[in-house]
């Protein structure tokens, strides 16, 4: 699933030993989303969070970028294994199979055209 997403929507993916940067193009993502459903990629909690605010594509794009970034380091995980939840402060927090992920921090960003995630591995 991740490979298909990367193939169709990726603008940039850069990896090193301690970080991964993923940027997706929103316009291309919209084409993909027209042909699939959010539940293929997100848990119910994530979908609820995404839908609770505006600018759906931009938020979807940033979160998918985050999932791709984490998948680069944990290739056996499926999209549903990786959850990006918003903390009270608004800061994104990664959960792997329901548990908070302690080995790295994620930063999300989005514009009208792009969704981006920067995953920094701390240990």
């Amino acid at each position: 699933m991740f490979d298909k997403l990367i193939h169709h929507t990726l603008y940039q993916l850069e990896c090193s030993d301690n970080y991964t940067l993923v940027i997706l193009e929103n316009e291309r993502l919209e084409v993909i989303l027209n042909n699939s459903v959010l539940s293929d990629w997100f848990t119910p909690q994530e979908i609820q969070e995404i839908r609770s605010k505006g600018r759906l594509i931009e938020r979807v794009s940033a979160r998918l970028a985050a999932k791709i970034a984490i998948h680069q380091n944990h290739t056996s995980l499926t999209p549903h294994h990786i959850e990006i939840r918003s903390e009270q402060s608004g800061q994104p927090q990664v959960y792997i199979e329901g548990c908070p992920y302690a080995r790295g921090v994620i930063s999300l960003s989005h514009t009208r055209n792009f969704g981006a995630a920067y995953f920094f591995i701390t240990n």
Partner: protein
Amino acid sequence: MGVAITGIGVLSAVGNGREAFWESIRLGRSGLKEMTRFDASKLSTRFVGEVRNFDPSEYMSEQELHETERCSQLAFAAAWEAFENASLPVDQYSDDRKGVVIGTSLGGIPNGEVFHSQWLHDGYIQTDESLLLAYPLHTSADFLSIRFRLKGPKITISTACSASSGAIGYGATLINAGKADLVIVGGTDPLSMLSLSGFNSLKALSSDPCSPYCQSKGITIAEGAGMLILERLDLAERRGATILGLVGGCGLSSDAYHPTAPNPGGAGAFKSMHTAVAQASLNLDEIDYVNGHGTGTRANDSAETSALKNMFRDSKKPIPVSSTKSMIGHTLGAAGAIEAITCVMSMMHNTLPPTVNFDESHNPYGLDFVPNTSRKQQVNTVLSNSFAFGGNNVSLLFQNYDHSPRSTEPQNVAHHRTVITGLGIVQPLGIGKESFFSAIVNGKSAIQDIPFQNEVYHSRVGALLDNEQYLKYINPSVVRRLDMLSKYSMASAKMTLDDAKLKVNRDNCERIAIIFGTSSGPIETVEAVNRSIVLQGADKVNPSLFPNTVMNAAAGHICLAFQIKGPSTTICSGGVSGSQAIIYAHQMIKDGIVDAALVIASDEYNETLHAGYDRLGVLSDTIPVPFDREGRGFALSGGSTAILLESEEHAIRRGAEVYGEVFGYGIASDAYRIAGNQSSGKDYARSIELALQDSGKTKEQIDAIFTDARGSKHIDMVEANAVRRIFKDQVPVTSLAGLNGYAVGGLTPVHTAAAVFALKEHVIPAIANDNPIASIRLAGHAERLQRAETFMINSSAYGGTYTSLVIGKYRS
């Protein structure tokens, strides 16, 4: 260093699982029965050796079943048993130190047969392209690497009936060379209409279950898989593993006699057996048993027994020889591995397996063939033979761990330097090195509109050889016997030997190797044979075509044409086939196995291949640009590149001009996905690091990188990430895929030739790309390198195998 066998797993006509298998062998119970999965009405036999009672869903998920075919499924079940048998503690070895070497003759051919049939009957648009994902020969190795987390070296060998013996030998080489601590080796092959109808056309099938060394009326085709876990002996001992046996030696030779028939005097077979025994430093009286190739054809049985009589003529005791193919059938590429397991179990149980269907009143070849009944006897040392079409001979020597004398002294192994002394180029960009080099400088792409225009194809571009200039390099008397792949290869081989001024003669012919690399192999011939099966019937195959369907046919033709009789093997690891051929040749020279090796990497480009790749949606509809952010695919090309590698001493001794030196290499796998690659480039970067380490070079010493970038966004991004991890954007990168097209199995040899040019002229091919996918330094037009001493050459295969070579200027 020593190589231990610590696990075995097998599926065959006589039983699934080692215990059931051995019970049948011990009792002389044949598994050759009437075929159930194929229509035998047009074949000259009803008998095959089918694997029965095998349900792959017991081992694999639904998705895995969908992504694989019978070849990989058999391999996986056998590997599962082998790993279970080895009782490896979790994390005993790091993933990076575990490798896989698989031998197969057919691979996913049955998938190809279904796809082709759909195409011919229902039209191209109705074909199921997913069948092609598991078609490549390297799919089994990819799948095992994914499931068992094998991220070290990954190689697929396809030398027809000796493929898995070659795989075992190469696995042992990798361990002895320090490239891995554990390697799973073995072979796998399914039944297919191609092999059944092909051998039928040659009138080589026995109407009854085969009778090796006795009636010798022909072979009985079978399917199966055998896998062995090889471990570094000292590490296996340290973990307290049960050591089932040792790999004591491996001898490879080439007959150089006939495309299919063995040398009737058995000279090649003698040489391979002799080499295997010599490697183990044994005398012939210490050999207790020979598991013969024993196919049941008159040609094999006669030649092999001649070789055996010659080999053991001074032996004090008669040597027992048996053919377990009389019970298992001929499992083609899996035969060597299944027979290796038979040998190991023979030592474990001190029992000689019998040759069944043997009329004891009729022993035409006069040796002790252990007729019909197994025999109890102390078995400490066993020789196993596998001989194949193309004259590819492999002999393996196995030893009983508890009864083998072992030296406690560290062995001083003299390593030889490998130099490049000859080039031969048959590529769209140029035929002959001068034409090729000038095309690099001009920068004009050879990719153009293809002649097989068809509105159903998405891509209409490719790089074809636009004339047949290369035919002048081939002896006209042999051209008619050659298919497209062999013609390309023969021409590049001839150019290389001429360029290197190397004369092959009686004195040196056994010290020269042929290492062939191809991704798709003789696809034109495979298509023609399969077309006749689908449209005309299984009994209508042209017998002159079938011998050219095996991947090692081209190498066999070259051995024959130039009378090269040293080791010969054919590597079919997809996009890394050419680079792995260079690596294997380099290792042989380094270890002193040979003085010189002719490396040839070839792939066809024709409508069949174009259609297949186009159906997978990986081809570009315009001239591709490597590392393009919008990369929409690649353009295929066909051709051949040959390189002569020699030991430094050999080159100096004969006064050869040295173009460059091979400093070192790295191989790694990502164990990620069949037909996919992990985009982070982490494991690709590991291959680069291993190559730097092996060559003793630092990243600062690399002056340019020849990459495998081809215009496909995803795979180019994998490499961009790998390069950036090691080199940031400090080193210029280049690729000829935009000028020459993507020569699937052979881009590294093409790049090696370009690197040789760059060592002299300081010019590397340019990449005209104003929208690169990552921050890397692309080579500019006519960019002159300030320093051109050392280059990195990378390649990658779909399925996640990566290789890196470091080559550079030779200094004595």
